[in-house]
């Protein structure tokens, strides 16, 4: 009979697993080697490998259906791989389920992971008790983590009265209950306002500084800049890119820019002058412009560098007041890799 994630761990296996984990060089890392998983005919993951060291944040990027959530479920032991090995803090999430669940903090993507009729505090106490804490310790720990996520004032209110952002912060609080060394974060900032998203990211950053390893699955490409240490880009179940954020950005050569232009007091239509100046190196379209100035979108041809285009505009008396990429380098790289895959 095959072992399942729900089977009781054996006492001797537990001790052996701990020993093996302790012997590992980096007990707080996340590792997948050649993972494959199908659901019926659908190949959800195909030969996926990745590794996150302790104290690092690894971003998991990919469009809907790329396999991000399946990969997180494999790490959490909720799904068993068809092939390959998974290790969390040196432990097998299936064979050492009980230990892995103590080591792991999961922040799921959905809202519906709490008992809506109970208060936030009661929910946390319940989950703390399932983690083996005695009631008094569970209450104390629940109060600590609810303070950490700034939900103290709402602690006694039923979860059904919480906003989306508050429920997400409660999710973070639940993941913190056991002070885990590994965090799996699935679309944590999805639908959050900027302040709430920043709050969640700050908490995760702080955990990382304390030595936790984090997988941060997201579709918000730009949030990984200055946040993630590495990026794994998944598409249709396989790894399209695995490396650092600068390495990912090197796949991008931006060709479209948003410009704010001014006519510089020269007579004549600014748009016409700009189009004429750029006629053999690109094109320019007004987005919100009057005759004297405004916002434009510049597209430059292959082989043309941005500075050449800007010099041409200056030469016809067009002042470039501001210039930025239409899409971020990360987004551009992401789309470029996705396009390559489609080809």
């Amino acid at each position: 009979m095959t072992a399942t994630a729900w089977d009781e761990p054996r006492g001797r296996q537990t001790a052996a697993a701990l020993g093996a984990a302790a012997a590992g060089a980096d007990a707080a890392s996340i590792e997948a080697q050649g993972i494959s998983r199908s659901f019926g005919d659908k190949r959800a993951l195909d030969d996926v490998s990745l590794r996150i060291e302790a104290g690092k944040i690894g971003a998991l990027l990919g469009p809907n259906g790329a396999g991000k959530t399946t990969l997180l479920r494999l790490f959490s032991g909720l799904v068993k791989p068809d092939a390959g090995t998974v290790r969390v803090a040196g432990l097998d999430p299936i064979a050492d389920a009980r230990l892995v669940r103590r080591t792991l903090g999961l922040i799921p993507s959905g809202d519906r992971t709490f008992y809506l009729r109970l208060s936030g505090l009661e929910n946390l106490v319940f989950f703390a008790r399932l983690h083996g804490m005695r009631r008094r310790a569970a209450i104390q720990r629940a109060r600590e983590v609810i303070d950490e996520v700034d939900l103290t004032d709402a602690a006694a209110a039923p979860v059904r009265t919480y906003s989306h952002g508050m429920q997400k912060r409660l999710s973070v609080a639940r993941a913190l209950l056991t002070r885990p060394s590994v965090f799996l974060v699935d679309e944590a900032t999805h639908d959050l306002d900027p302040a709430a998203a920043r709050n969640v990211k700050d908490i995760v950053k702080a955990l990382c500084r304390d030595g936790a390893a984090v997988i941060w699955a997201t579709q918000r490409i730009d949030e990984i800049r200055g946040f993630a240490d590495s990026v794994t880009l998944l598409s249709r179940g396989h790894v399209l890119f695995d490396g650092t954020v600068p390495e990912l950005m090197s796949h991008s050569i931006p060709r479209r820019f948003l410009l704010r232009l001014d006519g510089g007091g020269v007579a004549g239509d600014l748009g016409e002058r700009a189009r004429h100046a750029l006629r053999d190196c690109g094109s320019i379209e007004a987005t919100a412009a009057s005759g004297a100035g405004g916002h434009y979108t510049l597209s430059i041809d292959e082989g043309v560098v941005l500075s050449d285009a800007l010099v041409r505009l200056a030469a016809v008396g067009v002042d470039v007041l501001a210039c930025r990429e239409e899409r971020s380098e990360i987004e551009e790289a992401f789309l470029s890799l996705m396009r390559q895959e489609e080809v």
Partner: protein
Amino acid sequence: MSTTAATPGRAGIFFGEVGKLSAFLRRDFLTAWSYRVTFVSDFFGLILQTVTFYFVGLMVDDSVLPSYGGETASYLEFATVGIALSMFIALGLGRVARAVRSEQMMGTIESVFMTPTSPTTVQLGSVVYDLIYIPIRTAIFLTSAAFLFSLDFDLSRLGAAAVVLVAFIPFVWGLGITTAAGALTIRGSAAGMAFGVSILTLVSGTYVPLELFPAWVESFAAYNPMAIAIEGMRETLLGDAGWSRVATDVLKLLPISFASLLLGIFAFRMALRRERQAGTLGHY
């Protein structure tokens, strides 16, 4: 940072798991209490049902009713025991069957299984509140009905009736877990459970004496745990059945209850295994 340093042994794990049951109990009590109106109207509903049977009883010729301890029971006395037990079964079966499915529907099932808690604890924990609440509710109903309608129950025999009930509980529980296993893998299959319970209730002599049914139904009742439990409770509460009668009923019930429970546990484990293989445990 991690808490993996402390590794409980086998006994530590066992007592740890038992300790978690109180967390489930508190969770479900608080949830039930948050629906206070339902909580209270549940009791009023039972009393209203008894009032209905009181008036129905006025039309029933008591001579067609069986006698217990040499005395013919009134229809209300006869039906009240049936109501109590059928409510016990309907509630018990329904809640056990829906407990895990509710977790699935609420989206909390994966969060629960993400804790180091065994599936057996989750199963037991999900019904522990009902295992305590439903017998208390049944006892309160019987006592209230006895006082309100001056029923000739021998309440000193409630203990003996409770023993029959305790032997019967694992049957209900096992059936509930089997239904839960079905609902876990085939969403919506729990609806079939209500139909099954209705059939079982009808052929158990809950509201009508078995003697009025065709002979084959009466023969079937000898192996029908619900009929055995109802008749056992009537004999103790309405008649003068002693502990030897209780022991006979318990001996008949225990093997069926044990088999039902084993089947339920096996089916539930298989359902969880299948869900995990399919990766659909969290789906609703």
